[in-house]
């Protein structure tokens, strides 16, 4: 449904600002590479999240999909139509099939809730009666029928975003772009907006591309996730896989930050990278599917003769998958612990050795 191919975006910054410190003029324009060679495919009906830190190029990426930002190179296909080559008029037509919501809602302050939702339809030149027929059920869908004649200033943040969602859906788009749609909302409201988006995805089969810096959002509604860093997509995976075993360092940082699953402070200080004479490995175990319900830890003790000291543990459920995470110290001889890790890996656990600590016993 959405297909970005080899999209790059370079911003030219005029050399008006003086170089810091030197007081010298910057000497002409400098450029910033906001996106480099981005390939992204979001199939029909999927919710795809792009996660990254601020300044990584998330906003530029999502704005390239409806050409609010025109890519410097590359092509953008939405619903089988290549957008970068379209005339202005044809592009406006194409944009009717791409809804967008924003972090700060961007509702017109001097229009009522009803008139805000009606705006895209007015722009399409739809008749008044027809507009009413479209807007009324949309307000019902987002649960704001009773607010139709109020102005945005009278609404809460969550209600404003609901209006924005209704507005984005008014032209019956095939694709919905969400630009940090929940970043300005409190956690509870975020939850209800995400639930609404998931609901819309289900009911209407709408393809959703969202950008966010919150793992919570990815976990809650995304099917697939891409990780963006310095304008490049560095990792892409199904959400369940990503939460079990991110492949990049940045992915692991995001995950650890989200799960807050780190070894205790005191232990981190003792961790050594290489195993020594008398050390135990400290491992991070991630397991999903059958492994969750299998009593692997006690089997480990029985079958490998390795004791397990659990330092931290957590169970998350992500996209109907249960995900278990644990930080544990494996206590036994080097051969035994080696065996234990092999045993765990043979049972589809993801094992990451965080380091080694001196034996205390």
């Amino acid at each position: 449904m959405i297909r970005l191919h080899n999209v790059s975006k370079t911003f030219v910054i005029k050399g008006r600002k003086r170089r810091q410190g030197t007081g010298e003029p910057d000497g002409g324009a400098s450029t910033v590479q906001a996106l480099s060679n981005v390939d992204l495919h979001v199939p029909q009906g999927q919710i795809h999240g792009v996660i990254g830190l601020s300044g990584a190029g998330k906003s530029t990426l999502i704005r390239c999909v409806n050409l609010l930002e025109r890519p410097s190179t590359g092509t953008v296909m939405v619903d089988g139509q290549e957008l970068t080559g379209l005339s202005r008029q044809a592009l406006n037509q194409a944009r009717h099939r791409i809804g967008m919501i924003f972090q700060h809602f961007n509702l017109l302050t001097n229009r009522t809730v009803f008139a805000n939702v009606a705006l895209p339809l007015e722009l399409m030149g739809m008749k008044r009666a027809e507009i009413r027929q479209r807007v009324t059920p949309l307000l019902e869908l987002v649960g704001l029928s009773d607010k139709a004649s109020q102005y945005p200033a009278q609404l809460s943040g969550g209600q404003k975003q609901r209006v924005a969602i209704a507005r984005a859906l008014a032209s019956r788009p095939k694709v919905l772009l969400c630009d940090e749609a929940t970043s300005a909302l409190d956690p509870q409201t975020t939850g209800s907006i995400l639930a609404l988006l998931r609901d819309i995805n289900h009911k209407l089969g709408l393809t959703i591309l969202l950008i966010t810096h919150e793992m919570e959002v990815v976990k809650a509604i995304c099917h697939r996730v891409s990780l963006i860093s310095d304008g490049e997509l560095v990792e892409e995976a199904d959400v369940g896989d990503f939460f079990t075993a991110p492949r990049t360092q940045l992915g692991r940082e995001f995950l650890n930050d989200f799960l807050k699953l780190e070894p205790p402070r005191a232990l981190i200080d003792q961790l050594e990278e290489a195993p020594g004479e008398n050390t135990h490995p400290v491992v991070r175990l991630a397991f999903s599917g059958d492994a969750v319900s299998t009593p692997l830890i006690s089997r480990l003790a029985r079958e490998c003769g390795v004791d397990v000291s659990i330092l931290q543990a957590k169970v998350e459920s992500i996209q109907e998958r249960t995900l278990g995470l644990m930080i544990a110290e494996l206590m036994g001889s080097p051969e035994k612990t080696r065996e234990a890790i092999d045993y765990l890996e043979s049972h589809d656990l993801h094992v990451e050795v965080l380091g080694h600590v001196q034996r205390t016993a």
Partner: protein
Amino acid sequence: MSSALLDLILRATLDTLYMVAISGVLAALVGIPLGVLLYVTRPGQVLAQPVVSGVLGVITNIGRSIPFIILMVAIIPFTRMLVGTSIGTNAAAVPLTIAAIPFIARLVEGALNEINPGLVEAAQSMGATPWQIITRVLLPEARGGIFTAMTVTVVTLVSYSAMAGAVGGGGLGDLGIRYGYNRFNPTIMLITVAILVVMVQGFQSLGDYLVRKSDHK
């Protein structure tokens, strides 16, 4: 006070209102679109035209930098060509209008500048044309700011119209100078000033009311 004098005051008041109204309306008709044009042709805006924007900006600044009293005299030939005379209320309305156009334009540009750029972006994402953005987003969203701009302009026009009295423009300024100043009649002077004060208060209150009514920010 004789009825003749009262008649004179009434007439002068109506003359002032007439000058302010006609120049206010005409200046708004030109000034508001000019303000919109100044805004939308700026770099990065929906109809970015740096050259047009630059040229319009310079013309507007020239218009705003000429002192009104000089403008009034300088354009007398133009005024004569337009209304056939350089004396009277119609003649005074010409320089008033010309002075008010760049004034309104800059204020409207400022009002548009207050609009959250995200709204324009949202409209663009819906496939709005530049014309639709101007008529459906920019102007309605700046409504309050435009009413404020018009209020400031009308109040300024009241005081400028009094200045027009100095060169035989008619109205309260004219009355105040001829009867109050030249004939040294403090009563007339005070009355004209009092009427002007009431007029300005009235316009300001009306403007504030319209801003309140129209703006839902």
